[in-house]
């Protein structure tokens, strides 16, 4: 399969890239690792007139701890997230999530910024990004702005990014060890049929704080608010968790496809939510 022809630019600075986006508007597509864009271009489902390859912009692939926040450059590969010592220590949910994206070759090329910008609801990062209350830094003609995770995902394949903005950084808070990401991969694509990310704070045998991010289930990733509410302040025994987790898809418009009906997806969301919470809780 062969993509349609396009004009190609490989800017070396963010500013230059934004200039190209301004110049070409809707005709332009950003190319980072290429693992979201090139497959649809090969099917000719996307035929951008202009491709702006931001892969050669320097300095966008750093992972740095700044106080209780870790900043991750947008061009950081999934593999770099998975193997980052800083993240493993400060925010282990992200390495755990990155480790189950696609396969080794895909993780070597795909980037966190590219994945988030594509906003595929079956991608693995969105649940974790939501559960961590992460911030996405978008750079546009007027400089940087920070978008909170809950505002970032608008709907399927649509984000709060403006056409002339580029994700340059993702900021996540440091957490404890009581986190987990569990997914039910599609047997062909490897994408998440259901993926559940959990961040817990436990003290005195009780759950003080809980965040549950769910991807794969609905048109966009979401926080399982009913589950969080039901478990806050509770001891996390199996029965309590199971009862709460049964509300994992409450209010979500669960998607239906050849592999899983909406009913089954909602059911899987409950099962994986329960298992992810228990797994996170076991990591004290």
């Amino acid at each position, binding site marked *: *399969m*062969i993509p*349609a*022809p396009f004009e190609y630019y490989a800017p070396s600075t963010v500013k230059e890239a934004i200039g190209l986006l301004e110049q070409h508007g809707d005709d332009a597509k950003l190319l980072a690792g290429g693992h979201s864009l090139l*497959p649809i271009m090969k*099917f*000719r489902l996307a035929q951008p007139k202009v491709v702006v390859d931001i892969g050669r912009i320097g300095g966008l692939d750093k992972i740095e701890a700044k106080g209780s926040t870790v900043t991750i450059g947008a061009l950081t590969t999934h593999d770099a997230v998975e193997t980052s010592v800083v993240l493993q220590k400060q925010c282990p949910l992200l390495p755990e999530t990155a480790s189950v994206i696609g396969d080794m070759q895909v993780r070597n090329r795909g980037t966190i910024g590219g994945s988030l910008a594509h906003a595929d609801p079956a991608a693995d990062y969105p649940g974790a990004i939501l559960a961590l209350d992460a911030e996405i830094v978008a750079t546009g003609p007027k400089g940087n702005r920070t978008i909170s995770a809950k505002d970032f995902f608008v709907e399927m394949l649509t984000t709060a990014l403006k056409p002339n903005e580029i994700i340059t950084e993702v900021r996540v808070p440091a957490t404890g060890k009581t986190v987990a990401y569990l997914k*039910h991969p*599609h*047997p*062909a*694509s490897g994408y998440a049929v259901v993926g559940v990310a959990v961040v817990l704070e436990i003290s005195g045998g009780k759950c003080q704080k809980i965040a549950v991010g769910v991807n794969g289930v609905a048109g966009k990733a979401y926080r399982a608010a009913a589950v969080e509410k039901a478990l806050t302040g509770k001891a996390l025994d199996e029965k309590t968790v199971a009862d709460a987790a049964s509300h994992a898809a409450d209010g979500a418009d669960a998607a239906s496809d*050849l*592999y*899983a*009906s909406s009913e*089954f997806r909602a*059911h*899987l969301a409950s*099962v994986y939510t329960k298992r992810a919470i228990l797994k996170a809780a076991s990591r004290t």
Partner: protein
Amino acid sequence: MAVSSLFGASIRRREDPRLITGQATYTDDLRLPGMVYASIVRSPHAHARITRIDAAAARRHPGVVAVFTGRDLEGKINPIPTAWLIPNSDLKTPPHPALAVDRVRYAGDGVAVVVADGPYTARDAAALVRVDYEQLPAIVNQEKAVEAGAPQLHEEAPKNVAFTWKLAGGDAKAAFAEAERSGVVVRQRFVNQRLIPNAMETRGVVAKYTSGSGELTVWYTTQNPHIARFLMSVVTGIPEHKVRVVAPEVGGGFGSKIPFYADEAIVAFCAKATGRPVKWTEDRRENYLATIHGRDHITDLEIAARRDGTLLALRGKTWANLGAYLSTAAPGVPTILHGLILTGCYTIPNIDYEVQGVFTNTTPVDAYRGAGRPEATYLIERMVDLVAARVGLDPADVRRKNFIKAEQFPHTTAEGLSYDSGNYGPALDKALELIEYTRLRDVQKQGPKDNRYLGLGLSTYVEICGLGPSAVAGAVGFQGGLWESATVRLHPTGKATVYTGTSPHGQGEETTFAQIVADQLGLPIEDIEVVHGDTGAISMGWGTYGSRSTVVGGAAIAVASQRVRDKAAKIAAHMLEAAESDLTFERGRFSVRGTPDRSKTIQEVTLQAYLAWSLPAGVEPSLEASAFYDPTNFTFPFGTHAVAVKVDADTGQVELRRYVAVDDCGRVINPLIVDGQVHGGIVQGIAQALHEGAAYDADGQLLTGSMSDYAVPRARMFPRFVTGRTETPSPHNPIGVKGVGETGTIASTPAVVNAVMDALKSFGVTHIDMPLTPERIWAAIHKQSDKKAEVKAR
């Protein structure tokens, strides 16, 4: 026969060095001077009338050499024929034009071809060919396609019925009457889903036509170059002696590279019309649409049994989806290769079965690994388990009770086949022992852990291999012979070239055939070269499929080798001034009995055969022999596969815990290669049970159109397989082999489904159609649980 260490040795494959260094040449690796590239425009609709094709923009596109439509091919390229005209079935063979002229019948049907100076240009120009369609209602389900009012595909085939094939043996009616009175009758509907073969290499063709000599050379991804040459000649009108077909390195086939496709004829036409060598390489999307699919049966089946588990009769009907046109072997797969083995390895004296072949607006269906036999084995092996559950016996015991006994061979079945040899009990016992069946049954009795249910499944199979005696091929309507050719040629220096009419593409016969020759002639294996896959080098052959290459092709090589040895013995006797009857032949050396220092090596004899200075009277110079081996019967490999699964009742996921395969393929030439064939087969069969399945929407759009949608299995989905063997040589095969290319696929599918059903028995679930996806399992559990709750509430 001579027994040396090579026959039966796990030697490294001789084809591997070129493959592991990137030096192998597959079809798409070929580049000829002046070569241009074809891209085929395919219908996006499953059923439509073509009202207009406008190729002007495509023709104007820079770099385009030519654009052809169905009209351009009319009268020049004959319709693509089917080659299996099954008798007594009222078979309809509607024409299949290489490019559609006024009507398309499946999404993927070719409508035009663009030839350009590069593959990218060809693809761009193909997008510029404007085709106007008037959409017609489509039909994809074979059972609905035969109903009144369904959309009709071909005028020649009313109600979309391609054929109705019937099989009867014994007195099924009486047996069912008996079972209704005093035994049990189990009925079940089975859907054997549609599969996409997915050879890792897609199809491809390079065609070159030399007008000065009138010769067409075609390199392409085929499992059977001589059949391809024959059909290429029929379709293009180029005489057979002017056509050469070469199968370069071929990257897997699994049946999908048996057929003669429209695309080959289109590319050959383009080469002749443009005067340039033309290459066409299928992309994976096209492969899913335009390369044959496999299986796709719906079956209503009933089995009659006594209360003690004795099987009495089978009765049923299958609707076989054939797709939009009859592919090369399509009519024979769901009939001859399927119906004739339905009673499996059991004594079931009565059968009454009907198969209806049906046209639908889908990709044509043809042979996919196992071809008909997996479908049959699935039916009988599932039925045996259902009977066992009904009469309250262990599935292993019901199998053992009904096996054809060792002393009953050769055994004529209700379907009329004569099984050559078999000894089914020991294979079952060995499999049960290897999987620790008794222990696991005890574990199972302790109930589930963490809502995970243990299940054990068996499949005891027999299959038809070594296709086959030509007289039988003729009797069942196969438009070809099924014998095989071999030439063993020794060169003056004592090296050998071996020519085979089979066309291996991963099965390793360059190695196993060399082992046969080395064994027969005492040559070092590195002195033997095996040549295959070129009609210019090999007189004739019928190709590689139906687990026939080693069985029939290997036998031909053994016979040819014996002829070489016989001639060499005459010359050696002359050289040694001894009587031929006084010679012994061991490790490549002829010696005079009793005086071992009087001897000549085969190499010394070969040199004299070529020098021909002094040959015995009546012996011609040179040392080579050919054999055209036509087997007297099929071969019937058998065995038992046993599997232990754990089913997660919360998610519906199946975990394969243990897998044991005990296969009897007769004598084994290379155990390492046999294991490889078994492993690969097991994975394909398990994938059918658990993961794979092609799906269409009601309009005939393929929903599983790429490897992102269709689950080709991955390494992490499987445990380490344990393989075991029993050895019951084929009595009629010169080297005692039976074939092993398809056993794994045939046996594994029902074994896994049986194991999952066994795991779910406490829920009251008795059958789920494949693939056993998490949702299907979860839904089945919940449906039964809901039913139970309802009963309780009442």
